[in-house]
């Protein structure tokens, strides 16, 4: 029998990265629910996960499905007549709110490609398996997304 780590370790090691991915794909408001659903589903399936599986890729796959569910649920909800943009999309952190905000405005595929490749370190073939299309298309979507972020957020240059 191969030892499988206590699930607490999975949360401790990957919780932050998965929340960043959820925030990137869904924005700060929806991210918490997606994170919770992801880890609850993961907890349920964990005993059956092969011991040598890539846990972070597995979690991101679940998070991707939960994010799709959230987007579909949001589409089914009647759109609010009085939109409150200030409250609807609060900055996720004090430090870099504009960049997070710019990310939420990217087209979905670019956003997902950036999140899964740059935040979750999935190879482009795995990104493509999640978002559809070829690995090359995923690479282009991620590159376009990063280029677009740099255009809308050029003042980040002097950081290093």
């Amino acid at each position, binding site marked *: 029998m191969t030892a*499988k780590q*206590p699930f607490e370790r999975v*949360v401790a090691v990957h919780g932050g990265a998965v*929340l960043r991915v959820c925030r990137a794909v869904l924005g700060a408001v929806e991210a918490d629910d997606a994170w919770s659903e992801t880890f609850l589903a993961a907890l349920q399936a964990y005993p059956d996960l092969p011991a040598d599986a890539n846990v972070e890729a597995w979690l991101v796959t679940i998070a991707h499905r939960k994010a799709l569910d959230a987007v579909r649920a949001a589409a089914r909800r009647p759109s609010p007549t009085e939109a409150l943009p200030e409250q609807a999309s609060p900055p996720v952190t004090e430090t870099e709110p504009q960049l997070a905000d710019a990310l939420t405005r990217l087209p979905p595929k670019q956003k997902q490609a950036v999140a899964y490749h*740059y935040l979750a370190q999935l190879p482009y073939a795995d990104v493509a398996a999640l978002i559809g299309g070829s690995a090359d298309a995923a690479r282009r979507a991620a590159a376009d997304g990063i280029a677009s972020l740099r255009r809308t957020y050029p003042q*980040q240059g002097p950081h290093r």
Partner: protein
Amino acid sequence: MSDTKHVPADLVRALDPTPDQLEVLHQRLTAAAQDDGLLDVAYRTMDSPLGTLLVAATELGVVRLAFAGEDHDAVLQTLADRISPRVLRAPARLEVVVQQLDEYFHGRRREFEVALDWRLSAGFRGTVLHHLTEIGYGHTASYATVARRTGNPKAVRAVGTACATNPLPVLVPCHRVVRSDGGMGGYLGGVDAKRTLLTLEAAA
């Protein structure tokens, strides 16, 4: 394009959760896991005169208490291997036992009233441990006496082994088992811990 790297690095920072935000989500997860019957093993740590103790419980009851000297990560790994990998830090389930342990360590409690899950002590070891609960607060019994009570008077060594591998020390009072010649005998929490507990019970 020398700055290709900096947007992803800034992005990670921009989306980084604070420890508080992650803790809130962790609490939500453990509550939902409990509600859905997925919290197979809940654990927490607590301060005590014996150092930091780890306490773990299944849905049936307290299943493990580990001393500071035991490697808590290794203990949790063993629980994952032997019971279920659905192990989470979830203090709510341990609230009652932690309160009772606290009272015990302060001399305000003589018996524990919590459900115990005996699954980690099978066979003769389990039989021995069940008999230990007959030794009352402030009393001691020799390894030979305990062996006799189990119906196996020759099994003195096996009683020692059962005590040394007790998954529920303090709660199942293996510290009350001493040598026939008056010596204290060993203790998995260390001889000092055993002396502390016997002194505490003698004083109260």
